[in-house]
């Protein structure tokens, strides 16, 4: 890192009914959280395609947060259950891309949980600051373009969810690999 502190970009996919409203409530209540989160509104967390998450990483996100209604509270009855079932598959895919598990998170944030949003964003920002910039970003590797994520952060064959900072950079990691280790 050069002089300036690394400020990660976190892209949030927020469902309109609970989590987007929760983020609005955080604002109305004047709660403060790091300015690193950029929210894209979807009607339901179930709308979030894996492609969208990968696209975010490809376009320079250092982290992605999918937020929806709590299980049982979905505005569309069961959309968030579909999200819940898709996410483990997506996490495995992300691991195969060499993306550190701390960079992706699914959170249930209801319309009155402004405080929870603050907590989730703060934790994510802290964790990702420790990891450093996502190495495969367009901003760091303009020549890669949007479609091709950069080299792996960790060996693809050994995803260990929940592990923090234990991922040794793979031999293929370029100069911009994991900063924490």
């Amino acid at each position, binding site marked *: 890192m050069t002089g300036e502190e690394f*400020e990660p*970009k976190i*892209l949030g996919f927020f469902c*309109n*009914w*609970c989590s*987007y*409203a929760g*983020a*609005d409530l*955080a*604002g*109305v209540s*004047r*709660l*403060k*959280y790091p*300015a690193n989160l*950029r*929210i*894209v*509104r*979807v*009607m*339901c967390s*179930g*709308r*979030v*395609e*894996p*492609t*969208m998450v990968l*696209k*975010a990483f490809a*376009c*320079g*996100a250092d982290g992605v947060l999918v937020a929806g*209604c709590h299980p*049982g*509270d979905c*505005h*569309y*009855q*069961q*959309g968030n259950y*579909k999200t819940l079932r*898709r996410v483990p598959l997506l996490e495995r895919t992300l691991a195969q891309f060499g993306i550190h598990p701390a960079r992706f998170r699914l959170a249930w944030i*209801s*319309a*009155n*949980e402004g405080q929870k949003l603050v907590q989730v964003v703060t934790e994510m920002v802290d964790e990702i600051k420790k990891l450093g910039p996502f190495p495969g970003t367009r901003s760091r590797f303009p020549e890669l373009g*949007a479609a091709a994520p950069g080299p792996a952060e960790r060996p693809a064959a050994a995803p260990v969810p929940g592990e923090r900072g234990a991922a040794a950079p793979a031999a293929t990691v370029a100069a911009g690999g994991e900063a924490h280790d």
Partner: protein
Amino acid sequence: MARIGVYVCHCGTNIAATVDVAAVRDFAAALPGVVVARDYQYMCSDPGQDLIRKDIAEMGLDRVVVASCSPRMHEPTFRRALESAGLNGYLLEMANIREHVSWVTTDVPAATRKAKALVAGAVRRVALHQPLEERYADVTPQALVVGGGIAGIEAALKIADGGFRVHLVEKEPSIGGQMAKLDKTFPTLDCSACILTPKMVAVAQHPNIVLHTYSEVERVDGFVGNFRVTIRHKARSVDMQKCTGCGTCWSKCPYTAPNEFDEGLGKRKLIYIPFPQAVPNKPVIDRERCVKFQSGKCGACQKLCPTGAIDFNQQDELVEENFGAIIVATGYSLFDPGRGPWGYGRYPNVLTALQFERMVNASGPTGGHVQLQDGSTPRAVAILHCIGSRDTNYHEYCSNVCCMYSLKLAHLVKEKTGAEVYNFYIDIRAFGKAYEEFYNRVQNEGVYFIRGKGAEVGSRDGRLVVRCEDTLLGKYREIPVDMVILSPAMEPRPDAARISQVFGIQRSADGFFLEAHAKLEPLKTATDGVFIAGACQGPKDIPYSVAQGAGAAAEVLRLLSAGRVTISPVVAQVADEICSGCRACLPICPYHALTYDEGVKVVLVNEALCKGCGTCVAACPSGALSVSHFRTPQVLAQIEEVLAV
């Protein structure tokens, strides 16, 4: 190339104090497709909207981005502005730079950068927007009110008087709710039953009201204007058509059980009406306890019933009805003080406020006599405020009504017994009309007020002792009394979680139902066409509950008399040349809006059923499904630009 106008709002200083609005404007002006970028004090004001209209007319804008507050706030406002200038309302995109930026950030450069990112995303996205037409659906001219307490009764009567049919569902055998248990009401000391029972009778007699007592809503399908609701009529074991309510059965039933209506103080029979003024005035058999159901013996009620109305084989019955709108007014429960150190359940002369209401009521278990367990009259009575409320061990919130009902009970004790009365309080919150005056009156009647929460109730020499820290004296005190009345908090009903899921209502952190907007939409919920009223939303007194019931009725009448509702044009579509007919999407849709056409071997969308969540789109392996206004290219473009800054 799109011709986009970008409007950055200052919102007074709400945005402009944290976001460099001019910098965002200049940044936007340089984005591809942007023809004009302006900033303005209040975009939602008439002159602000005029800016947009004028630019559409004069500069030929075909897309608009407004960077201001949440779209949940003003998207309808700006859509209307576009439409009044002849542009389709869906050619608008909002960048939420207030709730999501200026209000949650203190760092000006970071906030400005984030605002630019959101604006960039909105500009890229809006270029891909397509005009969409809103659709309309007819409204079933019939309403459902769930909960037969005072809020639900008021709502049902108002809607019925307005000329629409109402179904009122109550899970207990009679309507009336908690208010029916009260003796007097503060601050006027009106007899509760005297003002409630005429309304209960009006419900029973109203030609527009269909009453479902001893019933629960099992399932709700559909959406605003057209809900399909399944109601379970629990088996009463009494044929409502044949029963005349003569009372032979409950006078002859040889067995008794604790009376729930008297809060367990008195006894009732196993075939019973909850209270003398019950509506309907027809009994129900307590199957859990009835000897006939438990051992097959007895059957006295059946033998003696003059009309042959007793039916031991009656089954639960499921009824389906269609409704245009729903009001949920399911009320509250009382906090169980047995959880705390106040001797409840341990000492027989420690009562809850509701138990005392029953005791002091002329039709209650003691015929209105205030008495101790041994039948004697108490000489000193303590009333403990804030039991379970304003207490981080239990509920943090103030339960709102306890101060006032405690004052009322103090008055009643004084009036009926002349006993010494001690109120243990933290603060007295006499917030309503004529409430403070009532507080003064009770003080003048000689009731003692000790500023300190009743911390513990113990016993000494056969009397009860209330221990507290008197915060005005700065001293620890022990006050001996004969009777303790606890004023427990109102809390969400134990089935609030189930009800919230059945009706699609969100709940706030305290477990009460959540309104759509804390200030401006107190009766709406996140589900269109489902309204809330009364204490299911939070602790309330009777006038407030009545006002909410009437208000919710106005919301329902508005929907029913309009006769049609607008339906969002955000729905799924299938590109049938791409659809492979794999049917992976079919089980995903909770609304059964997707069907497989065996003839052409593709999936079809029923737009009338589709709610536009887009969950099926994310599941389609071939990319044949899409959802309007949230098309994959639109979202991907937004992602790209939001991250580019």
